[in-house]
């Protein structure tokens, strides 16, 4: 399958199944577009009609280009046949390993953000903190089910995990004692709203956390509109200096400043630029996930605005990079030569199989976004996965599980999308969250364009 698009002065051709990417001129772009439908003579006629006035476009030259395209097809870089579907079901179905847990150490929060998908950390249930005993059992469960995997990941999540900080520290200490015994390496992530960050948190997080995710929505007026405490006061002024101190003492690495944008700030690039202007360089900004009737929800009218914003972001990032003031945007990070293998690309995020969420009570869910959905409870950390029906549903959820994805060029970039988004949009994890698909495809097009220009020294850029 081939996908063609024009962006920022680039004519880009993607070959879905090989992962091939080609930067082409407009003549080759048009030839590729009709290559499968027309004969060679018809293509020559069409191109001469369109470009015959140009000195560089001759019949001989067009035939040369057609020949180049044929070589690419033959060498598996264009129209590569899709042979991955049997692998997708077999690979994931065979997997019995758990390698990552999202530990909900606090179903409670000191902020009261109305758009929170976790309903202020309570996940539509009771407030609770995870005990050390439950957390320890969760780590033992992870080790016991991790098979030969060496790298194990644990995200301290909530609610607000700093509300249960002592337990977090005890769990990290316990995990470190288990690493040499079992030949494992724990990578910890802390996701926090920042309110309770102090010197102790900074010192410990910088020593023990492989990654820190810091919640900031951008400009003060945007952030404080929704990220408020229970008295209704915005949190921006309290957290930004703490984030700056933490990031600086961390050497400016291994963190993400993560924001959420909503219907209220479809000009969210200004919030990303604001984060960059505050000195942060590792940035992420996610579209809000909420019910369609929520005032924060993105609307159909917002879609073209948001799409344009993603283009604007890519261009501004490249401009700032040239000025030595570059920053990264999570969704534009692509490693074309050392990216994920096809197994990762077809099997997705691993929710419900190798990745699970653990509640303060030790219940297991397919991921943090399913916590509170009783029908999706997988089991618990003492008895393991006992809900075979849900487990099997997730085992067969992959890039080939949805008929809508069959002809989608982006399926090996998103693996069929987020199961939770699909569930919330359609009631089924095998559904399609179409709005999210549109945004995702735009982001990947932008990310690839940036990589293409980087690989070709920006010679085609309009920016």
């Amino acid at each position, binding site marked *: 399958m081939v996908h063609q698009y024009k962006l920022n002065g680039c004519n880009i051709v993607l070959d879905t199944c*090989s*992962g*091939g*990417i*080609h*930067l*082409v*001129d407009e003549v080759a772009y048009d030839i590729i577009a009709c290559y499968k439908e027309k004969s060679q003579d018809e293509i020559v006629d069409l191109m001469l009609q369109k470009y015959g006035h140009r000195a560089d476009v001759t019949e001989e*030259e067009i035939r040369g*280009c057609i020949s*180049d395209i044929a070589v*690419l097809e033959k060498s*598996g870089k264009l129209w590569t046949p899709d*042979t991955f579907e049997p*692998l997708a079901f077999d690979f994931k179905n065979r*997997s019995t*390993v758990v390698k*990552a847990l*999202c530990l909900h150490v606090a179903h409670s929060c000191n902020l009261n953000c109305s758009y929170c998908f976790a309903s202020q950390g309570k996940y539509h249930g009771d407030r609770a903190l995870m005990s050390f005993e439950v957390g320890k059992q969760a780590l033992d469960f992870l080790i016991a089910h991790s098979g030969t995997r*060496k*790298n194990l*990941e644990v995200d301290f999540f909530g609610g607000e995990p700093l509300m249960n900080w002592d337990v977090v520290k005890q769990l990290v200490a316990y995990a470190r004692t288990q690493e040499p015994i079992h030949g494992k390496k724990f990578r910890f*992530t802390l996701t926090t709203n920042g309110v309770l960050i102090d010197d102790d948190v900074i010192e410990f997080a910088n020593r023990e956390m492989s*990654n820190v*995710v810091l919640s900031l929505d951008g400009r003060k007026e945007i952030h404080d509109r929704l990220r408020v405490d229970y008295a209704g006061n915005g949190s921006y002024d309290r957290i930004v200096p703490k984030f700056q101190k933490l990031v600086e003492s961390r050497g400016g690495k291994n963190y*993400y400043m993560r924001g*959420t944008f909503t219907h209220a700030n479809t000009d969210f690039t200004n919030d990303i630029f604001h984060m960059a202007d505050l000195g942060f360089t590792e940035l*992420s900004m*996610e579209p809000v996930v909420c019910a369609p009737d929520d005032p924060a929800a993105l609307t159909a009218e917002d879609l073209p605005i948001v799409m344009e914003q993603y283009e604007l972001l890519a261009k501004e990032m490249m401009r700032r990079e040239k000025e030595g003031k570059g920053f990264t945007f*999570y*969704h534009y990070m*692509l*490693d*074309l*030569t*050392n*990216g*994920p*293998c*096809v*197994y*990762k*690309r077809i099997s*997705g*995020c*691993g929710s419900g199989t190798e*990745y699970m969420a653990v509640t303060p009570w030790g219940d297991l869910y397919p*991921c943090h976004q399913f916590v509170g959905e009783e029908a999706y409870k997988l089991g618990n950390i003492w008895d393991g996965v006992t809900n075979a029906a849900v487990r099997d549903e997730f085992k067969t959820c992959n890039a080939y599980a949805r008929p809508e994805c069959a002809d989608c060029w982006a399926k*090996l*970039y*998103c693996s*069929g*999308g987020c199961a939770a*988004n699909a569930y919330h949009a359609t009631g089924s994890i095998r559904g399609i969250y179409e709005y999210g698909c549109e945004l*995702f495809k735009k*982001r*990947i097009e932008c*990310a690839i364009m940036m990589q*293409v220009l980087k*690989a070709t020294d920006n010679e085609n850029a309009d920016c």
Partner: protein
Amino acid sequence: MERIKTIETRDLNKSVKNGGCGECQTSCQSACKTSCGVANQPCENDKK
């Protein structure tokens, strides 16, 4: 190829043979938490 520049990328078909070790980061352990993107996870297979 005058009109076509092929960018260096990992060949997904070849990765059928040398991939699948599972050591790479779980995508939701990084920053998204509300979407699925696997393409930005670096490969951690040291035997490929």
